[in-house]
């Protein structure tokens, strides 16, 4: 059997984190989740990390999504990162500067996000 894609999802809004985790788990992805930037970064820095794609909220406690993107792009330039952001939030431009592969504005539909994930994974 083919190894499932590994995703890291970081969001401090519990309901969104749970919804995204459940959705992608159902779609047979291997999902790791984190509720703040530091916990997310720890997953990224752990030895067995090798994530295929990272989805992060931009405004997070302690380490922001912008920081996560910068760090990931420095360490693993080939790992795609999708930033999700609340409507009209300033960090959107910061996320682009940090070279997020895509910035998705809330609200969005789950299938829309999955399409995006597939597109980036097949690149």
């Amino acid at each position, binding site marked *: 059997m083919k190894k499932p894609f590994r995703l890291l999802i970081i969001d401090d809004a519990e309901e969104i984190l749970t919804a995204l985790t459940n959705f992608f788990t159902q779609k047979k992805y291997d999902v790791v989740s984190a509720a703040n930037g*530091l916990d997310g*970064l*720890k997953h990224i*820095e752990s030895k067995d990390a090798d994530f295929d794609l990272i989805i992060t909220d931009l405004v997070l*406690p*302690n*380490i*922001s999504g*912008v*920081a996560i993107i*910068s*760090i990931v792009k420095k360490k693993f330039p080939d790992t795609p990162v999708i930033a999700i952001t609340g409507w009209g*939030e*300033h*960090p959107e431009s*910061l996320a682009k500067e940090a070279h997020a592969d895509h910035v998705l504005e809330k609200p969005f539909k789950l299938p829309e996000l999955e399409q995006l994930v597939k597109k980036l994974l097949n690149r």
Partner: protein
Amino acid sequence: MSDNSKSKTGPPIVGVSKNIVRVRELIEHVAQTGLNTVVFGESGVGKEVVAQNLYQKSPRVGKPFIKINCAALPEGLLESELFGYERGAFTGAEQRKKGKFQLAHSGVLLLDEIGDMSLSLQAKLLHVLQSGGEFSPLGSEKEVKADTWVIAATNHDLKKEIKEGKFREDLYYRLNIIKIHLSPLRERPEDIPPLIDFYIKEYTAMLNNRHIETPGAKVIDRMCTYSWPGNVRELQNVLKRMLVLGDCNQIVDEIFNSERMVSRDSGPDDELNHNASLAKIIDLGGRNSPDNQSFSLKTAKKNAVEMVEREIISHVLAKTDWNRSKASKILKISYKTLLYKISDLKIVPPEK
């Protein structure tokens, strides 16, 4: 103002609370990144210590660590301190002067009290951060580029200041790539014993290890229940006093007394003014001031008595629902006297 602590190792972050453990962990993870950082926390909580720890664990250690307090300088001066100026940029600019941004090149610039920076200077700072460290000193045509790690510190609630229009939202997000929050000491009393331990060791070494009285277990217990409005800095001062003066018990008594005074001063202004001092109630500073022409003990006393009578009678009337005969019985005065006092003291029944 500025601090070139090239060789000096800063103090460690002492504590066992969840907040402090988390802060240490965060520093370990982000010190390498050089991403803009804001340290939040009340005065005296140790924000600068966090900045120093970030610096020491970063690849920039050994390079300049420059600190500037944004609240201590008037706007124009702060701008020239930050960005520098050319000779002749303004009257009195006799020499070219490098700004802190440039001095901190390849090192760290700590912007303390960032919440006090004026809006126009915030705009300039934002521009520098957006351009990756480019700016032009006052009176200069040329742009200078500085590779500076900006760490800001504040005791303000910047989110609130954004709503009030006092802080730029775009600057907030630009600085706040990493956010480190230090809790006030009253929210983490478990850190007090290790802090006491740490500073006693440090101070006794400074006092040449002479035999000095140190606070015992009972005193430390009491210190753990104090609210420490001045946070770690206040704790340091109290410990220094204890070690130098001895008599730890009395010093602890004093800090608790001063705490009560403060809470009394800031107490709510309730109807009976429980919290005001007698001088305030009698209004010695205003109506009954001895400086007034009309002042005499007799009139001041009459005024004070009237005030007390009015307060007591209103209170009893309110309790009895303005049943005057019931109220007169409670007050132990005749019904007629009560009616007279109500009109004389101009006590009015509540509107129905």
